[in-house]
């Protein structure tokens, strides 16, 4: 297999605009972005609260979150699988082997990253802002909106880290999504499938497309945050 075949496969995928391929790309983005969005809505306020609150067991929670950042996707996938299986506690919802199940699994993967990095960012920012915010009467939870807004560029990086983890993983989405053609097949599960079919150029071509997409999203986010950071100083 030569390198040319890989690029040719990637090129054919992109230029051909095959609806099946576009569906896979769209589903991948939809699942991952939704998971990151949900993780952000939960994780940003929670991470900020964890940065500001002092309570017994806080250190233990922080250590656990840092450890969970390395949770193997397969384990997260398996846990969600057992939860959503018809024989599991949430079976009646009928969510196994759906995009929703994949989103749930990825939220579990992304959430610890978002919370842990948010805590770090907000704690640093609070150290800098504390005197002023307390002076104008913003203490405790009331300081969170200000800190989240002013930490937005650093927090964007935290969300990107979460996006990277979610978009690259295959273990969780494969287990809970089932890699159903046209329904739960994502870029990464398609790569797994093509590898097992022995079509390595196509698998690597898909990988190249995934890499380009990730690169594009990172570049956009980086550029936006640089421009924004220049604006906000």
């Amino acid at each position, binding site marked *: *297999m030569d390198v040319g075949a890989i690029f040719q496969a990637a090129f054919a995928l992109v230029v051909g605009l095959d609806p099946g391929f576009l*569906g896979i790309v*769209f*589903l991948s983005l*939809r699942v991952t*972005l*939704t998971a990151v*969005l949900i993780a952000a809505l939960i994780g940003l306020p929670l991470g900020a609260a964890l940065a500001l609150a002092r309570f017994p067991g806080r250190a233990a929670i922080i250590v656990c979150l840092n450890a969970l950042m390395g949770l193997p996707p397969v384990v997260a996938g398996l846990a969600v699988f057992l939860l959503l*299986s*018809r*024989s*599991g506690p949430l*079976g*009646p919802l*009928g969510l*196994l*082997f759906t*995009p929703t199940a994949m989103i749930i699994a990825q939220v579990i993967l992304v959430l610890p990253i978002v919370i842990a990095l948010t805590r770090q960012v907000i704690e640093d920012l609070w150290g800098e802002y504390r005197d002023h915010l307390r002076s104008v009467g*913003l203490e405790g939870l*009331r300081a969170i*909106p*200000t800190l*989240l*807004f002013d930490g*937005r560029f650093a927090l964007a990086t935290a969300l990107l880290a979460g996006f990277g983890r979610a978009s690259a993983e295959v273990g969780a989405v494969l287990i809970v999504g*089932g*890699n*159903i*053609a*046209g*329904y*739960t097949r994502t870029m990464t599960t398609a790569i797994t*499938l093509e*590898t*097992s*079919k*022995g*079509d*390595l150029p196509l698998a690597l071509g898909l990988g190249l497309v995934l890499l380009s997409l990730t690169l594009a999203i990172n570049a956009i986010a980086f550029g936006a945050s640089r421009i924004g950071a220049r604006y906000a100083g």
Partner: protein
Amino acid sequence: MIALPRRSVLAAGLFLGLTGVALAQAPAAPSGERFITVASTTSTQDSGLFNHILPLFKAKTGIEVRVISQGTGQALDTARRGDADVVFVHARAQELKFVEEGFSTERRPVMYNDFVLIGPKADPAGVAGTKDIVAALKTIQEKAAPFVSRGDKSGTHAAELNLWKVAGIDIAAQKGPWYREIGQGMGAALNTSGAMGAYVLSDRATWISFKNRGDLVISVEGDKRLFNQYGVMSVNPAKHPHVKVNDGKLFADWLTSPEGQKAIADYKIDGQQLFFPNAGQAGA
């Protein structure tokens, strides 16, 4: 009261709004659509059979078939948990057990193909060309030639274990470093064999459609004991009341009908037929 900076509210609102729009426009399967979930094997998926026959079934009935492809053992477990409406696999003994346990009321034969022993062109065990799979396996074990086993409770794995037994070899006790269990699907096993210069048992359909053959060739084929029968079962609603019993039955009926059987026979790669319909055959 602390008012959020207005711009941040706007930005958050915009972001949520855009995401909402993106999600609303998602084309993937609206929930109102009629579909069934089929747990099947890697061979039917990796060989491309489903890509050929499912559109025909959908055109006729309007039912979308969502295929989860796993090893036969895993596919049966998926159905046992109630996560599939139909199972379509190839391990007769395990299928009959599934029916016996009451998870299905009926197993129906659909089609067959055969297993082939794949090995490196160099043929380190010197078994190429023989028709006797049992003798070939004995030689491989004696010479400790590298052999890749699926090791994943799939139909192919079950067939392989059975062949060792027929050869009079207690593989669990007699396996050495030459016997490598990888715990993965057919394609992965072929990829691994190619890389290690090992022998491997494969179903013919996956082999024909496999694209990364490298130095691998068919070493042994044509033995009657390499016969590989596929069967279909719809999950018993008495065990799992939520299963789509009617649509599941429709699919099983169609697979075994003349129309479905013809669709299976029509699937060819490079002029080679991959599966041979035999729904009517007694005892299959």
